[in-house]
């Protein structure tokens, strides 16, 4: 058993007032995270795993017992979860409970761990729960890349809505339409947040992620598979239901793997008809093809209607491999990593310009071969 003394906790009078008030209501006895409290004709009863049973207490004796070392953490813990957090925000409460492993660890053990901070990874950020005054909890959110950085080296924020600005553009100033893309900028910190603001901040950085995570945890996640999403579309998107199953595989491989999106893909081609693409290892699920996937699929639906043609190109073996290297570099987002003078990389700019100068005609056609075979020059 962890030593309670390691994290001495003061109990405020108002916290005991709240406990007494709850006992005086019609809600019945309290059984919460190891704290038992009740009232009957003999007086008050109070017990925790550390305190043994107190029975037949007067109100004054109850108040005194509530501040004992073996009881105080349980009282402040009850107060935080039942009065401060409450039950109204079901998903919010579940996330905050998870942030301190509340369903697995005893109150004294948690208080020791919270003293040094308990971390939860969420997408690219880390949430750290700590113990505040009188058992209150405080939360810090920062980019995983900034774990270990001094607070004063990071830009500090305290309003969850400030996270909107953080999440809008990537580190090159490009708009991020997909909030779960692994391109969240670092260098910022939300310090000393309450539970509501902490979850609110996550909900700005990763919209609906907390709700979907908890629905999944409670076996209630409403996954909508590709077929249903495609068939639901109208207007300009109604054509995506014609995208062949094979191409849906490529869509998932192109858009939904962890290198592109940190949500864990739970939707499949159809119920009982899984896609082969890696669905990722993210903390929170993706329950349905998103609007980006739908919009891209519309383009692919049109493109996949084309028939293949046999073209004849003259390429050296190295040029063939260079074309493959260029496709790989673009697909993996590595263009910026290839150094200007690194002519050993097929996707190097000079190498690519050389290839274009050699193999493209004045119309930009590879080997002078027209795209439409009937359109001979």
């Amino acid at each position: 058993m962890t030593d309670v003394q390691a994290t001495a906790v003061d109990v405020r009078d108002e916290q005991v007032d709240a406990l007494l008030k709850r006992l005086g209501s019609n809600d019945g006895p309290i059984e919460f995270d190891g704290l038992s409290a009740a009232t009957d004709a003999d007086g008050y009863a109070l017990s925790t795993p550390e305190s043994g049973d107190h029975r037949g207490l007067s109100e004054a004796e109850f108040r005194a017992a509530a501040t004992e070392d073996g009881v105080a953490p349980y009282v402040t813990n009850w107060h935080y979860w039942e009065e401060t957090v409450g039950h109204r925000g079901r998903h919010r409460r579940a996330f905050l409970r998870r942030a301190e492993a509340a369903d697995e660890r005893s109150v004294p053990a948690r208080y020791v761990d919270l003293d040094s901070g308990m971390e939860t990874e969420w997408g690219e950020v880390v949430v750290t729960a700590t113990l505040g005054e009188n058992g209150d909890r405080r939360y810090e959110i920062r980019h995983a890349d900034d774990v270990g950085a001094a607070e004063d080296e990071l830009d500090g924020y305290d309003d969850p809505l400030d996270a909107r600005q953080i999440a809008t553009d990537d580190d090159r100033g490009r708009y991020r339409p997909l909030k779960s893309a692994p391109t969240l900028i670092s260098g910022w910190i939300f310090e000393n947040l309450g539970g509501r603001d902490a979850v609110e901040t996550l909900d700005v950085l990763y919209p609906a992620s907390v709700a979907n995570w908890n629905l999944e945890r409670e076996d209630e996640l409403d996954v909508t598979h590709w077929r249903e999403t495609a068939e639901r579309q109208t207007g300009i998107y109604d054509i995506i239901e014609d995208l062949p199953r094979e191409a849906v595989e490529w869509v998932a491989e192109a858009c939904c793997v962890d290198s592109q999106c940190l949500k864990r893909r739970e939707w499949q081609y159809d119920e009982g008809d899984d896609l082969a693409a890696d669905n990722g290892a993210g903390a929170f699920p993706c329950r349905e093809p998103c609007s980006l996937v739908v919009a891209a699929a519309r383009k692919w639906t049109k493109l996949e209607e084309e028939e293949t043609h046999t073209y004849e190109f003259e390429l050296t073996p190295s040029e063939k491999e260079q074309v493959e290297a260029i496709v790989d570099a673009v697909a993996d987002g590595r263009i910026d990593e290839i150094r200007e003078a690194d002519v050993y990389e097929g996707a190097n700019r000079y190498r690519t310009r050389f290839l274009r100068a050699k193999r493209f005609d004045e119309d930009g056609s590879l080997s002078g071969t027209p795209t439409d075979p009937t359109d001979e020059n």
Partner: protein
Amino acid sequence: MQALVIVAHGSHLNPDSSAPTHAHADTIRSTGAFDEVKTGFWKEEPSLREVLRTVESEEVFVIPLFVSEGYFTEQVIPRELRLDGWDVSAWDSDGLSADTATLVAEDTGQTVHYCGPVGTHEAMTDVLVRRAETVTGDPEVGDGFGLAVVGHGTERNENSAKAIEYHAERVRAMDRFEEVQALYMDEEPEVDDVTEYFESEDVVVVPLFIADGFHTQEDIPEDMGLTDDYRTGYDVPSEVDGHRIWYAGAVGTEGLMADVILERAADAGADIESAIATVREATRKTEADGEPGKTDTDREPRETDTDGETQAAGD
């Protein structure tokens, strides 16, 4: 517990599309009128499919930030929100009169008051006038000025033109501006010929659009002759054919839009009267004593949103 959810189109390409939605949400949030104020988008996150689960309240007022009734308000939004049993007849609308319908969201079980779009609410007329005040820096603007309300036109949605006519008529009835004219991008009377429709030297041109984008920042300024190339920008006012054109940009960026959102919610039964009064004053950019206030006339050209769908689209 009552929550407000503002739903809008958003964009995969351009962050300016959702900026007004967030700004209006912030304005309303600061009044404290609702326990929660959230935003949901067709093209951004949280999606329309998932926005309701981010709301803790059991009762939700959903306001579409769209200019007219049509494809999005009648089909896409109710479908994506999973409003059980939705049928457009619940609004009993003539194309302008959608107010509210109360339904249950299938996935969350929340009670949803699904309201008509902001663009057809009568309070929108006040926003058009406020936009004219803001762009001229004159809270009394009207004397010697003409006002043009610009819309997409009927090509893709007949209700779009109805909303333009409706507000133009209401501004006309105020007897405040010398002349009021409805103009369109894709039908007669066309915005290209704006100077032919006004005798007044000064004309304020206000597009009834929710957000600035391709149409309001590129098409309309070029069509009216404010500039040959939107990327080089234009002056406000600009001289065109002997007229001074005060081009206001999308009315949806005006702070008073928050009031229309609140009015929609109030009409649907939300208890928010004091918040409405607060917002009406807090969003005023021109000084009440008649001195020009801060105006937002230095417009930088912004990126094109070439999304295949537009907010007025019914295709």
